[in-house]
């Protein structure tokens, strides 16, 4: 064979090979073995057809009416002035000595994180009774833990990081509760007589937040103030009659969060500041326009928000949330009755003060809070910042003093912090440095001690996920 022929054959083979390769290359999809991750692959929502007939406040049982009447109150979430600072003059212990804390009583509860409200010698708690499958408002004597009465309604709540969540709101006349599945109940405080109930999820086509409702109710001027989401952003309900006093429209379809409504007075107006899933808002609390939106800040939007807004006298509002959200500081301004909001700062949890579950405390012009687990080197530490620069940490408790998702508050000029495993730490509040005083284990084998603390007349009530105790803290 001649050399020319060989060359031609080779060229033909090469061309044919090239054509075959080009054909293969054009027709081959290198991603054809990939699996697309599309919405709905988890079959979410299939098979939820059970509808319960829930009769709010249906059952009642009276056990006793004997209790020692006292003077002070801790009437709701974050206390009487919504700041988590007790104003009681009662002097409290700061050292427990070798014998440990004086635990007056302890009792088993349904698994959860609902906190106590205290009213003149009585403790009110919205427990979840696992045996009866019921939201159960229970009234105890503060000094000895004896149960006086309970009112309940059957509702199926499955274990989901505990069941109960909220702190009742208590006034001289009424108690208002919100259950895990957003059932609002109002009863007479003294005898537990049922007044009215609202199924928020059903009546307002609302959505119960992840891990159940964490919003603690508010009673203001005889009205229960509830952030419903769904058909309304917020409602006011007359406690005596159960009639809706006003209803804030919700055209942007903001949803209910775990955050609670914080009353605030600024620019000559009383308002309810609420951190919804969708944005932050200020709702007129009184006047002819009660229930209308005075201002809103849609820039603050995260899928889970548990801490409540911290409103400061100069109109700054500190906002924080967990699950990677971080924090935001906004400045509220008022001009001729018109309110506006400016975002001053926004940052990730590694960059400054942030909290996942509890609301920071504002004291002596400073903010104190426990950093979340994704807070970098400061994770789970108590930190102090100035509201003028919440990214600049003035002090932190140090890597040897880490806490968790548990509550903290101030009483008798002492800072009380409860860790997840129910270790109570007492520190001296300071804007200069971390000053520990005492640390003691309160509940053995405790888990998830996340419920807010309550104190009145020197009696401190706290709990872990399954057990509540009362400590006599009086000197």
């Amino acid at each position, binding site marked *: 064979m001649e050399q020319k022929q060989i060359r031609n054959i080779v060229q033909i083979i090469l061309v044919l090979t090239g054509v075959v390769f080009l054909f293969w290359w054009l027709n081959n999809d290198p991603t054809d073995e990939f699996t697309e991750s*599309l*919405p709905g692959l*988890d*079959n979410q929502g299939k098979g939820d057809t059970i509808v319960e007939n829930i009769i709010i406040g249906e059952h009642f049982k009276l056990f006793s009416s004997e209790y020692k009447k006292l003077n002070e109150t801790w009437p709701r979430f974050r206390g009487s002035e919504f700041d988590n600072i007790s104003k009681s003059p009662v002097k409290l212990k700061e050292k427990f000595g070798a014998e440990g804390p004086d635990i007056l009583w302890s009792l088993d509860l349904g698994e959860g994180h609902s906190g106590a409200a205290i009213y003149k010698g009585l403790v009110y708690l919205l427990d979840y009774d696992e045996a009866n499958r019921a939201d159960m408002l229970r009234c105890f004597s503060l000094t000895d833990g004896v149960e006086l009465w309970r009112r309940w309604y059957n509702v199926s709540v499955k274990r989901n*990081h505990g069941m109960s969540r909220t702190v009742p709101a208590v006034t001289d006349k009424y108690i208002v509760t919100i259950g895990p599945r957003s059932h609002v109940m109002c009863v007479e405080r003294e005898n537990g007589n049922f007044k009215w109930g609202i199924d928020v999820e059903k009546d307002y086509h609302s959505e119960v937040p992840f*891990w159940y409702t964490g919003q603690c109710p508010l009673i203001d001027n005889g009205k229960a103030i509830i952030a419903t989401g769904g058909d309304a952003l917020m409602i006011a309900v007359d406690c005596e009659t159960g009639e809706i006093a006003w209803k804030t429209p919700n055209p942007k379809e903001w949803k209910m969060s775990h955050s609670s409504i914080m009353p605030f007075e600024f620019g000559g107006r009383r308002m309810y500041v609420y951190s919804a899933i969708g944005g932050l808002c200020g709702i007129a609390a009184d006047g002819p326009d009660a229930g209308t939106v005075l201002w809103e800040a849609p820039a603050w939007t995260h*899928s889970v928000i548990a801490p409540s807004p911290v409103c400061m006298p100069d109109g700054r509002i500190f906002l924080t949330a967990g699950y990677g959200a971080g924090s935001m500081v906004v400045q509220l301004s008022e001009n001729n009755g018109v309110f506006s909001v400016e975002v001053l700062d926004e940052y990730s949890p590694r960059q400054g003060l942030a909290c*996942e579950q509890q609301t920071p405390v504002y004291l002596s012009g400073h903010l104190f809070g426990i950093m*979340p687990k*994704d807070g970098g080197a400061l994770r789970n530490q108590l930190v102090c910042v100035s509201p003028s620069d919440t990214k600049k940490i003035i002090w932190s408790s140090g890597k040897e003093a880490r806490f968790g998702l548990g509550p903290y508050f101030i009483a008798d000029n002492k800072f009380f912090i409860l860790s997840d495993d129910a270790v109570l730490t007492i520190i001296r509040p300071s804007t200069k440095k971390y000053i520990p005083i005492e640390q003691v284990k309160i509940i053995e084998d405790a888990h998830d001690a996340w419920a807010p603390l309550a104190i009145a007349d020197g009696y401190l009530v706290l709990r872990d996920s399954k057990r509540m105790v009362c400590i006599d803290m009086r000197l």
Partner: protein
Amino acid sequence: MGKKAKNRREFIQSGMRMSLGLVVGGLGALSLKHVTKDEWVWQIDPFECTQCGRCATNCVMSPSAVKCIHAYDLCGYCNLCGGYFKPDANKLSTAAENQLCPTAAIQRRYIEKPYFEYVIDEDLCIGCAKCVKGCTSFGNGSLHLQVMHNICLNCNECSIARVCPSHAIKRVKAADAYIVKGDFSKGGKT
């Protein structure tokens, strides 16, 4: 005929042979004992792990012999799973943009309201620990890393252990080759 008496040279030679035989036999027995009873393998202590991500990049195997495993008895079966979803995800759906895992190695399955199950696809897992970090930060810490001994070469000097900042990779006895969270039966930590 009477037995021939050993001279000094023969006595020393036989003594040396016996000593050598004893030494070799002893060493062999010792090494056999190690292999069968006290072999040591590498494992991650999940309680020391800080989810730095180096297990994915420093193992001599590719993909890494370190995989995520799931302690179901610790899991909260949450809708919002910090191990599955990116922080502050737009929507809690299985869409790719919401998932934290770079290889989609976690399957999310709806059980009943409000529970979801999260299953690790070991073949896809690269041991990056992103899900472990999310689960530890926001959940019960049920997702955790382990060295899988069907993949691990059990190197004399583990290349991950050399760079592990928290010294979480340790030698453990082959008889207890895994340090699994939620293993209450062995008195382990949870």
